[in-house]
């Protein structure tokens, strides 16, 4: 009898082999250690090697196939943990998606040896069943065996490197990212869209590989949704077979980067997204985040109109009006044409800006309105340009279109009017960008989260607003009657317009301090030198008769000396210090109250203490912030209220575009500053997003007081 039993045992064991070969797959059981001690953990791997183009399946096989299954037969004292699945490959088509391992996979299983395990040879056995498919499918199974010595020392097995390599292909834990999922709309039949978003580093194509379920199926198609930097958003359709719509969907958040694939395991709770703006707030509060398109386009148009009044645009109107006045005496049709060409110039500049935004958005970078000015050299160049324009307006030199001074093609003389009108439009656009005016803020924030055609529409609307006055005037020549007749006043007007230009140049000079710090006063010196050179040019070269040659030489020496001696040597204008992404710069905290640097942790800490929180997103270059918001916060009544409520005041300095603040602004659908948030005392309530301030400080004080009062209701 015992012989029979022994025979049976041998036969039974003989069924298990180290590796098995089926139709298209070779299966092997490998271990990370060949000798282990009691209490050790050993990593076991089921190594499946398929013929080329044959695949086996992930733990969610998708629309067809079945996952590989394992059944362990382990000696006493050894326990097997759950299977760890490396990140699979997603096979198209979208309406029949499967998640597979092509050609090769090692499924990892941790084995735990108990501390009481006895020394000897342990037979680790596993029964594996799988489905291998190329076009047709063939089921496969194997009984695999591996031996593990239990002894006093630990010895790695030759398969350890292979196991380590496949361990690297396991998904990471989701504690490294913050992910949300929300149902976008009610269901249509049995299909409902789910929006998944997560923030993380890296650039690539995001996707979500769901785990399987009997009650529902996440479809294969992934739609990427627009988002700003650091945030990935996608939409998946979920099909329900039975029961309620799932409250929890588990799976892998995947990012396909140029260098490989990164995946995170996650359990998403699919709640509806909590509204960011408090909907029960009074009508004049938060600019709603879901405005209809026509309203946003109207705001964009109005924003463009108002941009005409901004200090960074107003001086250019001087140029426009002057040209207009000059042309008014000639052919009215030509005037109309000039009007349209000016509008065209503005439109083309805005659309090319839109193109840049779209390109940058597509490249996955953070694109914020006004970001051109983070380019130090751009700012320097613009300062110089604006100063030259001011000097021209003062009459120090002339810019005659078509003359040798411009030095472009000969036919510029005939087209001078049109070319001038076009480039006036372009200049107006360039100067308008850092002034994110009221209405524009919300409109642009809306636009940046939108698909390409809407962005183009938004930019076109702003362009239309900016160009509107000129076009209107060029079409209604009758209204020229209201324009004053030419005379000596024109020259006075021209000089007077030079002063807003000079103010703009000074403001730009102030901006360069962001990049060059104290060194930017050298730029001021350069501008003075340049002014002198320009005067010499105008007085002695353009208008002078004798000594022209000498004058030219002096001008060249001046400019060269200025450039090399100052811009290069002192300012080092081509190498600005690295923009620090330091969110702790407190340069612009309003006065009168204790402001601290903003961080998400600071907000959470303050809310946990039960105090209302005020967050002021501001930047050195933001005009509205400095003209309206800061003075309003510094006003007596607001400071008193802040003290009374024991509010925590945090300032988020966006001057150098730190990534964390860009992401935070994007959460509230804004692309730039100003933004003021008031978190109520009640921890459960979401923050109130205050409306855009008008550039008059007095107007913002009642808004702040009202919001602060609501925060503690």
């Amino acid at each position, binding site marked *: 009898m015992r012989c029979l039993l022994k025979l049976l045992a041998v036969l039974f064991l003989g069924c298990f082999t180290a590796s098995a070969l089926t139709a298209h797959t070779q299966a092997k059981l490998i271990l990370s250690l060949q000798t282990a001690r009691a209490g050790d953990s050993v990593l076991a791997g089921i190594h499946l090697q398929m013929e080329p183009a044959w695949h086996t399946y992930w733990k969610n096989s998708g*629309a*067809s*196939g079945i996952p590989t299954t394992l059944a362990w037969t382990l000696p006493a004292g050894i326990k097997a943990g759950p299977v760890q699945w490396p990140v699979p490959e997603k096979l198209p088509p979208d309406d029949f998606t499967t998640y597979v391992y092509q050609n090769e996979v090692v499924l990892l299983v941790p084995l735990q040896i108990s501390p009481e395990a006895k020394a000897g040879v342990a037979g680790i056995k596993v029964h594996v069943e799988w489905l291998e498919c190329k*076009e*047709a*499918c063939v089921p496969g199974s194997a009984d695999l065996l591996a031996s593990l010595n239990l002894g006093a020392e630990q010895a790695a097995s030759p398969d350890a490197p292979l196991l380590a390599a496949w361990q690297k292909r396991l998904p990471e834990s989701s504690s490294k990212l913050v992910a949300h999922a929300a149902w976008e709309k009610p269901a249509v039949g049995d299909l409902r869209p789910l929006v998944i978003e997560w923030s993380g580093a890296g650039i690539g194509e995001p996707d979500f590989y769901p785990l399987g379920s009997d009650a529902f199926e996440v479809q294969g*198609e992934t739609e990427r949704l627009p988002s700003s930097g650091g945030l990935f958003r996608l939409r998946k359709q979920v099909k329900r077979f*039975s029961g309620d719509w799932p409250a929890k969907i588990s799976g892998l958040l995947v990012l396909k980067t140029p260098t490989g694939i990164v995946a995170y395991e996650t359990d998403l709770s699919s709640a509806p997204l909590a509204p960011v703006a408090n909907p029960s707030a009074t009508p004049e509060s938060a600019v709603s985040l879901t405005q209809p398109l026509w309203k946003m386009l109207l705001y964009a148009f109005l924003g463009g109109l108002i941009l005409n009044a901004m200090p960074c645009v107003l001086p250019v109107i001087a140029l426009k009006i002057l040209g207009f006045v000059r042309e008014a005496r000639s052919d009215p049709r030509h005037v109309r044409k000039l009007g349209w060409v000016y509008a065209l110039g503005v439109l083309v500049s805005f659309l090319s800006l839109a193109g840049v935004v779209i390109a940058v958005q597509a490249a996955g970078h953070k694109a914020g309105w006004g970001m051109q000015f983070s380019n130090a050299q751009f700012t320097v160049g613009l300062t110089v340009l604006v100063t030259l324009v001011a000097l021209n307006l003062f009459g120090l030199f002339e810019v005659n279109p078509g003359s040798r001074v411009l030095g472009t093609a000969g036919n510029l003389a005939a087209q001078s009017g049109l070319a001038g009108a076009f480039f006036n439009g372009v200049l107006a656009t360039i100067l308008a960008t850092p002034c994110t005016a009221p209405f524009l803020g919300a409109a642009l924030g809306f636009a940046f989260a939108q698909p390409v055609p809407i962005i183009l529409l938004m930019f076109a609307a702003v362009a239309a607003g900016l160009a509107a006055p000129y076009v209107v005037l060029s079409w209604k020549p009758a209204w020229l009657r209201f324009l004053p007749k030419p005379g000596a006043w024109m020259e006075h007007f021209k000089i007077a317009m030079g002063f807003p230009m000079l103010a703009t140049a000074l403001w730009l000079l102030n901006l360069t301090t962001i990049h060059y710090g104290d060194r930017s006063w050298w730029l001021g010196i350069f501008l003075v030198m340049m002014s002198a050179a320009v005067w010499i040019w105008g007085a002695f070269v353009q208008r002078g008769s004798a000594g022209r040659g000498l004058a030219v030489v002096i001008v060249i020496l001046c400019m060269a000396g200025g450039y090399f001696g100052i811009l290069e040597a002192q300012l080092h204008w081509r190498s600005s210090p690295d923009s620090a992404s330091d969110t702790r710069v407190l340069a612009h905290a309003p006065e009168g109250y204790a402001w601290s640097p903003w961080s998400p942790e600071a907000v959470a800490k303050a809310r946990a203490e039960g105090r209302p929180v005020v967050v002021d997103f501001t930047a050195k270059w933001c005009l509205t912030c400095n003209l309206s918001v800061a003075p309003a916060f510094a006003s007596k009544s607001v400071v008193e209220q802040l003290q009374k409520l024991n509010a925590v005041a945090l300032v988020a300095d966006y001057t150098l575009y730190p990534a964390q603040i860009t992401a935070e602004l994007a959460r509230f659908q804004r692309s730039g500053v100003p933004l003021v948030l008031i978190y109520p005392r009640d921890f459960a309530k979401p923050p109130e997003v205050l409306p855009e301030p008008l550039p008059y400080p007095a107007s913002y004080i009642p808004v702040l007081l009202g919001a602060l009062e609501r925060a503690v209701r």
Partner: protein
Amino acid sequence: MKQLLTLVATLALVGTAFAAEIGKPAPDFTGTDIRGRTIKLADFKGRIVVLEASNSDCPFCANHLKTGALQELQKEFTAKGVVWLMVNSVNPRNSSHRTPEQARAEWDQEKLNATAWIDDSSGAIGKLYGLKTTPHMIVIAADGTVAYSGALDDRPAPFGDPRTARNYVREAVTQLLAGQRVLVSQTKPYGCAVHY
């Protein structure tokens, strides 16, 4: 524009998924069976119709046939007046394709008890009903509405005895024959992909 395209794509997806929408009338079709007869869904008005997306090369279907479980189910239902149509949508270039002669030979070999085996190598019927896997089962009630769409049973495995599994098609047909509502009307179908 992008939203419009998305809407169209979603509708298309919805369309393909819901050609067999539970509770809605089953779309009519015309097909030819392996014996050259023309089969129309409208011919079977007033009777319960079971559609089976099949491909005997798929290990899941092969197991149902090998164990005889599928043939028993077919016999059980056709005896009660249910129409059982096998729909083979494998395209002619695929190695699993069966010409009518081969299909007839297989019919005899496997002792099939269905009402007819429709040669759907063009894929028209399969796509009309959104048949995704083999086996994928559709049960159409006597009033012409789709009563069940999904898996044959709750045990996706290419081996073992399917008789031990919970058979959704048997449940649906039994409930329909008793004049009751089908309780489980939709499940996720398993199997190999249909080789359109």
